[in-house]
């Protein structure tokens, strides 16, 4: 049976069982690379995407539970040629080592900046707490979020 979902502003008909986690639908049916399989348990955040503007673990969200709500992935924030503000800030800070966690980091951080454009350092740390990085890129990730916040506020850098 087919299920329809809206991802990055586009409506898609998906021929997957409704118990399929959104992660597998995004990666395999829609061929979007951003959300990553990390644990399947909602413990690492590599699969983080937005549903109606809230950060969710796509590995734990069944296709059938999405309904009319809209899904956004990192592909919806910008592209290589036209990166979004936060994507650009991660590039400018060179905030990646292996980079496997980074798409999830950016998606989680984006929901913070959407709500609190000028968060404190503690707010950034607290907000990113669900997402794991094994390479130890944390300091750069924190700087990237700060940089994006500054850019959004028009602070010269």
């Amino acid at each position, binding site marked *: 049976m087919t299920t329809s979902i809206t991802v990055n502003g586009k409506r898609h008909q998906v021929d997957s*069982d409704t118990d399929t986690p959104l992660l597998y639908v995004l990666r*395999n049916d829609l061929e979007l690379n951003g959300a990553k399989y990390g644990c399947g348990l909602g*413990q690492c955040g*590599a699969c983080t995407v937005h549903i109606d503007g809230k950060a969710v673990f796509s590995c734990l969200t069944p296709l059938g539970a999405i309904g009319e709500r809209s899904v956004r992935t990192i592909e919806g924030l910008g592209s290589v040629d036209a990166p979004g503000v936060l994507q650009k800030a991660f590039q400018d800070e060179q905030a990646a080592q292996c980079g496997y966690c980074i*798409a999830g980091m950016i998606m989680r951080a984006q929901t913070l900046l959407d709500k609190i454009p000028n968060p404190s350092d503690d707010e950034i740390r607290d907000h990113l707490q669900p*997402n794991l990085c094994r390479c130890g890129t944390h300091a750069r990730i924190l700087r990237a979020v700060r940089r994006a916040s500054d850019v959004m506020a028009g602070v010269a850098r």
Partner: protein
Amino acid sequence: MSAITRRSFLAASGIAVAFALARPARAQLAGGGEGGAGPAIVNADLPGSLKSWPYLDAWIQLDQNGKATVFTGKAELGQGIRTALTQVAAEELDLPPSKVTLVTVDTLRTPDEGLTAGSHSMQDSGTAIRNAAANVRMLLLAKAAATLGVAEADVATKGNGTIVAADGRSLGYGEIAAAVSLHVEALPNAPLRQKGQFRTMGFNLPRLDIPAKTTGGEAFIQDMRLPGMLHARVIRGPSIGTRLKLPPDSEIEAMDGVVKFVRNGDFAAVVSRREWDAVKLMRRLQALPYTAANEPLPSGGVAETLKALPARDIVILDTSTPTADPKHSVSQSFTRNWISHGSIGPSCALAWLQDDQLTIWTHSQGTFDVRRVAAELLNRPIETIRAIHVEGAGCYGQNGADDVAAEAALIAASMPGKPIRLQWMREQEFGWEPLGPGMVTEVDAAIDAGDRIVKWNYDVWSNPHNNRPVGAGGVLVGNEVAQSFPIPEGKPIPMPEGDGSRNSNPLYDLPNTHVIYHFIKDMPIRVSALRSLGAHLNVFSIESMFDELALKAGVDPLDMRLAHMADDRARSVMLTASEAFGWKTRKKTSPLQGFGMAFARYKNLGAYCAVFMEITVERDTGRLTVRRVQADVDCGEVVSPDGVHNQVEGAIIQSLSWCTREASGNDGTLRTAFDWSTYPILRFRDVPEKIAVTVQQQPGKPFLGVAECGQGPASAALANALADATGVRFTHMPITAEKVRAAIVTL
């Protein structure tokens, strides 16, 4: 790659065999720092991996548009090597980096440089590419001079792919490329570009892989999609040694979603059209009863486990010099538990048998070994197998990458024409990957009345850290198939690199040293390489002891180290970091605040690293906060300054996670960590509030690998800061908040 170049490879490897027989002792000069002997040395006078692959066209090809393709036998593991090696090639070719395409390890296209491990990539491959590129530039200049009819001294490269003569005439590289044969051996002394001339090296070229990784591009092996690709999952018990009791094949084959059920001996895998179907099938079968391993897993402490096993004693240092009598003695034992690699992305591989050619895409650190393993496992001629490295999540040593590559190859070989993608699940990675070995040290040291260390007795117990597969017995599926291959016996890596013995030889000047490596070949827990191998616990032990001896002597820990250190570069990193940190003027402003430092030169051969740290401890919980960290590093000539910063920052955070959080336990039958709740690592709230890294400028000095240099010093600096804050010496990692609380609650 053209047929001609392919032949040149084969010709070169033919020579390699001949020379290898003549000069076997040279083999230890090569390799990736760990693992097998690595490719044979054919010309020991050449720098880096040119020793094994002396022909320029093995490394560099130029096309008629003046663009260069550069080949490395190393892999991008998320540490920026793709970018740094591109910078090296661009610099010495004197081309813009945009005109250089780097091809990373691929058994069909690139030289075999052994493993990508042990912080060797810049030393081996960077040095080879640099010198090969300098040779190519030299040949281009000579050809241009001849073409223009001027003296060689009257032509120069301009950084844009042109060569300009003194009279103003110019030639593009592409115009003369076809006339310059690169199928010639490198000369060892082609002139290198110097620091003052650099256009690319020593500058921060943005990492080439980051744009795709921040925008959802196809950046990882996990993102690869081949036409008609099928998804596989291996079916195994909960953890290493267990065997599932599976129903008859016909019953599994009848299940919904099964395209094929692959069984060979104790190896089993399902293949589905849809990935989620494969996962569901795996979960259903994995819930079946299982038998335990033949031998129970050790569930006791690391010291009692290791010291109960037979050991071979290897003397690392044995020196005696008449000295004054000892005045104060300190004896201490240190341990580190078994540690998981903890890759964020579970291991993945793709394989495809087309006609008679099997292609394997892998994120293993040993791409050529993946090919060797598959050849033995499948009993196929090695020429019919190609292995290509594609980036995975950071691995930090031998995780499940090699296992999953062999498994994908076996499945693909049983389904000709069908591309197979296999990814392990989170619990499989935790349950089956080789762990970083647990280790024990015992140190007995003494100082004389003048605060000189006059006694240094050091014992280290460890399993082999290098169990990287070079044949089918080294991977799980090789042990499971009906015609099974035995697990090879572990062997130590000889010094100076060492494995459990790595960095057990202090760089300090000690007149009386007795250092013994108790090498334990029997491995009750599956182990293999984890970033920095034994250096982590050895540096932790040595640097903890220096602080204990300084305390006895009433000497500042930095002064204690400097008093025993003659190496100027070592002194310089300690002094530079201490200056930047404000070590001499440090002052406690609150109780349970502490300052600590540590130093090591990785393997006594690689990068120098000093780490200074300030921490505070919360009395009620034992929770520690790292307020600030200052590191200084000397890694020789710097190619990518920001790359060095990134690696050292990461090493510090990862090391702090190992030191304060991590241990993979066993309950006798099973491992006890299967997810991030049972195996917690450092999260955002617990990373240091501030990390600063400075890098020594060493123009003209050889590249020294940097990625692992911080692992030992960061953990040791933390233990030293904790001792300074609490008065308690913590010797057994992980130093958890519970342990700290228990120790200080009575203070």
